[in-house]
């Protein structure tokens, strides 16, 4: 509770949390949707926003507002699921490399550096091109999860490296604690909050990649996500035809999601790094 109050004192966190809450409410609304998002031609085409259709209707004959609720839900689920997978890999690699050091550290960091340097976007595009029809939410989450862990593994390793030199480590080792117990009981307390901060950053990356791949038409377009919404609006020339409510809705939702996640992530990581916190307050 105290942590939350301290976080809310940061205006950026408050704004981010409120926007996120609105998006979550929208996502939950999808459970009460009167329309099936995968069926076309349920409502009159290309209607501007009205009381009946809050955000108008699309050229596919779908109610833009209710499709949006599904899109936000799917995009959030995908981001959370995929980011969790890559967090597990990053945490494992970071802990093992940081704690054991030596040859294991070298090998793991070698692989990590390799992943950092590779042009992941193009590799994902190449893989998505072959997977295409099979690229639903689950396979996409796995694919992004396997690809997006490297930078954070390096970050977590550096944190473990500094923890290993602290006194409580020696106290624990000298009092005869087994390694696993030390890691789980002592280190995880420090590392889990940091992992949460990287989780939000990674969710942004996943959402960005999903929208990019969908934008290129490489994912299963029957699943409503922010990316596929944008894909259809662009493919049906919503801009040229002046159906602005169709194209602006996914853009606005994506911008809101990105800004919210970003504000949350910077304010949480600043909160976790006391040096940055002191600098913000201005005290020395």
């Amino acid at each position, binding site marked *: 509770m105290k942590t939350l109050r301290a976080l809310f004192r940061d205006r*950026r966190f408050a704004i981010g949390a409120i926007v996120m809450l609105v998006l979550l409410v929208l996502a939950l609304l999808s459970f009460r949707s009167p329309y099936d998002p995968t069926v076309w031609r349920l409502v009159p085409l290309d209607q501007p926003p009205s009381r009946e259709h809050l955000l108008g209707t699309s050229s596919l004959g779908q109610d833009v507002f209710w499709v949006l609720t599904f899109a936000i839900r799917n995009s959030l689920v995908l981001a959370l699921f995929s980011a969790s997978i890559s967090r597990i890999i990053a945490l494992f690699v970071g802990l093992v490399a940081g704690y054991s050091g030596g040859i294991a550290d070298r090998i793991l960091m070698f692989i990590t550096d390799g992943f950092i340097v590779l042009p992941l976007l193009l590799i994902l595009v190449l893989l998505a091109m*072959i997977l295409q029809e099979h690229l639903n939410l689950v396979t996409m989450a796995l694919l992004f999860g396997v690809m997006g862990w490297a930078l954070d593994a390096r970050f977590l390793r550096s944190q473990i490296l500094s923890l290993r030199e602290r006194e409580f480590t020696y106290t624990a080792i000298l009092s005869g604690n087994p390694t696993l117990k030390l890691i789980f009981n002592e280190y995880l307390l420090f590392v889990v909050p940091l992992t949460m901060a990287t989780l939000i950053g990674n969710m942004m990356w996943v959402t*960005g990649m999903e929208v990019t791949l969908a934008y290129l038409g490489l994912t299963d377009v029957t699943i409503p996500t922010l990316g596929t919404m944008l894909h259809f609006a662009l493919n049906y020339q919503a801009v040229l035809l002046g159906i602005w409510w169709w194209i602006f809705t996914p853009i606005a939702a*994506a911008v809101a999601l990105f800004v919210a996640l970003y504000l949350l992530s910077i304010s949480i990581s600043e909160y976790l790094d006391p040096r940055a916190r002191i600098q913000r307050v201005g005290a020395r």
Partner: protein
Amino acid sequence: MRFVRRYLIPRLIQYVAVTVLGITMIFFIPRLMPVGPVEKAVAQIQARGTYSDPKAAEETVRALREMYGLDKGLFTQYVAFWRRLFTGDFGPSLVAFPTPVNQLIGESLPWTFGLLLTTTVLVFIIGNLTGGLAGHFRQSKVLQVLDAVVMIIAPMPYYIVALILIIAFAYIMPIFPVGGGYTIGAPLGFTWASITDVLRHAFLPALSLILLGAATTHQIMRLIVQGVNEEDYVRYARIGAVNERTIFFKYVMRNAMLPQITRFALGFAGLFSGALITEVVFAYPGIGFLAYRAILSSDYNVLMGITTLSIIALTTSTLLMDLLNPLFDPRIRLT
């Protein structure tokens, strides 16, 4: 030489290994799928063969089978792939058969290169300057507003910014063309009209890249400058009544630039993937748009060529930056 043994050789080994690892990955993973990429292309050409000249399709399929040794094992295919790679040959395009992939890439490369070079340099200058000012003069209201704007721009994905720019400056206020690299039909050459035409087309893609790149650089630079401002030598200079201008340029900025130069290569990598997306949105005739057309027509060979080249380009630029670093920052000694 201590430096060569302790640093250079391990670093070179890592460079080669990472490049090989990346290329091996993109070679094998697609082939582990139930339907291999070349088989998929073959099937597609065969399906198309019923519409077009069946003889030509048959020819393509046979050439592909022979080239990739589809009847032979995966390992033989892998060796053959490397052999062709070393001669700089990515094979023919599957769709525009038999145009070599090299030629297609060669035609698009200058566009991407020009766009990237200009934006990377401008991002570096603009981002560091505004970031440095914002970090140093933290009381200024104007710079605080700039910080807030940057905070909203920075997390946005490239295509969102690109789309917003298109909608704003090509549809609502049609100042700039919607897309393309030059007016179709107009002769390309070193005439005044031709150059301004190319620049006009490049403006919006470049702007979207610069906005995002500069926003990120701005934020990092602001943090670094805030850190440098707390250093003892800056405080000492201030107590010694060195004028604020000299402090800013000679004491703060010069020291804050060093880590930014290190980030230059990374920023280039980030801009590279950004440029690919931006080119697609603007239909700009560079590598990204070539990749996009390859995706639309499932031209695996073209995409494979582009990906392989990008892996080599990125690992090499990181290596060069790592090796050049001590030239800029005497504190880093590569041992």
